[in-house]
C-alpha cells in the first residue's frame, strides 16, 4: 500500500532503464518501495537497474523484457510484470519513449510510423491493460511520462512532440475516466532533462538533471497534482508559450 505521502511499496516501471525512470526508482526505493519490477528491452541494462534498485532499499526486484515496437505484446508485458510483483500494485510508471533524430525520421515513412508506435501506440495498449487491472484492485496510481514538448508541438521535433502530445491529451481523458474507481493517473511533464536520451543536444533554459525530476515526482506523488511539471516553473512558462503567435513561437522554439 502507498502511504499518506503517496510513497508506494509495490512498483512496476515500464521503460525502467531510462535515466529518468532509474532516478525515480532510486528515490522510491529509498522511501518505502520494497518490490520493483522493471520492464525494458535490454536485459543487461535491466539487470543493472535492478541491482541499483536493491542497493537503494528494494528487497524484491525482477525484470520483464518487451519490445515497444510490438503493441500486440503490451498486455502480456503488463500481466507478467504484475504477476511478478504478486501483490497489489501501488504505482505503475510508464517511461517508454524514443526521441530519435528528426532529420532522419522525417524522410522515412516507416521510421516515422515507428516513432508513433513506440511513443504512443505501445503505451496506450499497456495503459489499457493497466487500467483494467488497477480498477479491479480498487486502488493504485499510474504515472505517465509526458513532456512539456507535448504542450505545443514544435517543427524541430514534430514527430516526438506530436506523439507525446497525443499520449498526453489521451491521458488527460483517461485520468478523468478513473474518477470514482480508486485509481488515479498523473502526468509528468519535464522540460529538457540532461540524460542519455538527450546526450549531444545543447542545454536550453530550465534544463534539469534527472535527480531533480525525481524530486519533483516525489513531491507530485504527495500532492496528487494531476500534472507534475519539472521544474515546477515550466507550468507558467508554457502557460505563456502555448499562446504565442505562431511566427513568434517558431522563432522561440527554434532557439
Amino acid at each position, binding site marked *: *500500500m*502507498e*502511504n*499518506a*505521502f*503517496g*510513497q508506494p*511499496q509495490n512498483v512496476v516501471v515500464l521503460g525502467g532503464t531510462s535515466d529518468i525512470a532509474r532516478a525515480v526508482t532510486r528515490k522510491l526505493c529509498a*522511501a*518505502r518501495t*520494497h518490490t520493483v519490477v522493471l520492464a525494458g528491452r535490454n536485459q543487461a541494462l535491466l539487470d543493472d537497474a535492478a541491482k541499483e534498485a536493491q542497493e537503494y532499499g528494494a528487497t524484491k526486484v525482477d525484470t520483464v523484457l518487451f519490445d515497444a515496437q510490438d503493441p500486440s505484446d503490451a498486455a502480456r508485458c503488463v500481466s507478467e510484470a504484475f504477476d511478478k510483483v504478486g*501483490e*497489489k500494485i501501488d504505482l505503475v510508471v510508464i517511461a517508454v519513449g524514443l526521441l530519435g533524430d528528426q532529420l532522419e525520421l522525417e524522410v522515412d515513412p516507416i521510421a516515422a510510423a515507428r516513432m508513433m508506435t513506440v511513443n504512443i501506440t505501445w503505451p496506450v495498449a499497456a495503459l489499457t491493460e493497466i487500467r483494467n487491472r488497477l480498477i*479491479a*484492485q*480498487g*486502488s493504485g496510481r499510474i504515472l505517465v511520462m509526458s513532456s512539456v514538448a507535448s504542450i505545443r508541438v514544435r517543427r524541430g521535433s514534430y514527430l516526438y512532440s506530436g506523439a507525446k502530445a497525443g499520449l498526453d491529451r489521451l491521458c488527460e481523458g483517461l485520468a478523468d475516466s478513473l474518477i*470514482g*474507481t*480508486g485509481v488515479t493517473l498523473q502526468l509528468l511533464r519535464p522540460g529538457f532533462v540532461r540524460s542519455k536520451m538527450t546526450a549531444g543536444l545543447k542545454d536550453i533554459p530550465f534544463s534539469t538533471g534527472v535527480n531533480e525530476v525525481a*524530486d519533483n515526482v*516525489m*513531491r507530485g506523488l*504527495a*500532492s*496528487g497534482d494531476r500534472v507534475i511539471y519539472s521544474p515546477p516553473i515550466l507550468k507558467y512558462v508554457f502557460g505563456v508559450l502555448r499562446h504565442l503567435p505562431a511566427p513568434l513561437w517558431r522563432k522561440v522554439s527554434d532557439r
Partner: protein
Amino acid sequence: MTRRTLYGWGRTSPSIADVVLANSEEKVAHLFDSSAQVIARGLGRSYGDAAQLSGGVVLDNHELGGIGPIAPNGQVTAGAGVSIDELLQLSIPQGWFVPVTPGTRQVSLGGAFAADVHGKNHHRDGSLAQHVTSLRLVTPTGVFTCSPTENADIFWATAGGMGLTGIITSLTLQLLPITTDQILVDTQRFNSLDTIMDEMSRRDEHYKYSVAWVDCMTKGAHMGRGVLTRGDHATTADVDTPTRTAPRSAALSVPFDAPSGLLNPLTIKAFNELWYRVAPKEKLGQPQSLGTFFHPLDGIGNWNRLYGKRGFVQYQFCVPDSHGDTVVQAIKRLSSSGVPSFLAVLKRFGAGNEGLLSFPSAGWTLALDLPVGPAALPEVLDDLDTMVLEAGGRIYFAKDARLSPDKVAAMYPRLAEFQAMKHRLDPAGQLTSDLARRLRIVGK
C-alpha cells in the same frame, strides 16, 4: 452493498471498497462465507488507512446499534456501532459518564475498542479496554464472548488489534458515576517545554484529567511553550445550579475543502500565538462543560476539511519516562525543519495494559497535526520514528498513515503473539485493512 471511496480522518490515501451494513451477528458472520477480505469501519475517525480496504468488503458498523439499560452498578451493553456521543446523550442525564473518551465523541464503541483509545485520564485510569467487561466478537472461525476472564487471550488481542481479529458486534462497558455535567478546570500557561513537563511530572497525579497543548512553531528559549489544563468532575457542592445535560452536536461545520495551503507556516504560527495569548496565565477551579473540556473540536463539524485536498497526517508517539528528552528533541527537530505543525498535544501515560497491540505505555505521549505538503515532512517523520524507537517508544496505529513496516515489530514486541492469535481466529487471512497491508501486520 455500495462501492465507495473511503479514507481516514486525515483524508490521505483514499481507496475503493464495497461497503455493507449488517444489523445482527448472523449477518456479520455471513460476510466470511465468501472468500472476500473484510474489515469493520465505525465513524472513520482513525486518521490513516485503518478502516479501509481497497478492493475488499468494508462493514459499516452503524446498524449494530442499541443501548441496553444502564444497570445500577453502571454497567451498560451497547452495539459496536453506537457512538460515544449517542451513549452520553443517554447516560449523562442518568448520572453516568464514559470511563475513557478520546478527543472526539464521534467514534463508535467498536472502533474505540479496536484502537484501545485513551483520554485525558490515562495516567490514572488507563485506556478503554480496561473498562470493558465483556464483548462479542465475530470471526471467520466462530463467534466469541470475550472478557478479561473469559477468552482473555482473544480479548487482549482484540484490544488495540485494529479490527484484525474479528468484527466486534457489542460491548459491555463500566460507566463512571457523575453528579454534574461540569469539570473544575485548572489552566496554567508555561513559557517553555521544560517547565510544563516538570509541572506535569510533579502534580498530574492530583488530577483525574490532564493534558497540555504545546506550541511547536516557536524556536529558542520559548520552544514548546504551552497551556496545561487539568481538572476533576465537579460535584453538586461545587456548582450552584447542578445540571446533567449531554453535550450538544456541532453548531458550525466546514462546508467544503479549504484551499490546500490555507494552513501554512504563517497562519499556523499566528493561530498558535493566539492560542497561547488568549489562555490565562493561571486560572483555577473554573467550571467547564463536559463537551468543552473533552471534545473542543467537536464544536466544528468536518474540521479536517480545513487542511484542504491534500489532507494531513497526525503523528503520535509515546516514550518511557526515562526518555522524556525525546519529546524535547522531537519538537526541536520539527521547529527547526520549518515543517508547520498545529498545536501539539502532550500527555502523561500511566501503565500500559495486556493488549498485544495496545498503544499506551507508561511515560509521555505527544500528538502532532501536520499538513501534507512540505517536501521535508516524510523524511522528518522517518527521523522521528528512529528517535522514538531508540527511546523504546512506539507509534499509534490509529493515527498512522506513513510508518515504515520495518519498524513495527520493534515498536510492538508482542506482534508475533498477536499474529499467532490472528492466525488461529482467521486462518485464511480474510480480515485485513489497508493499514495492515501497508505495515505488513498480517499477510497480504
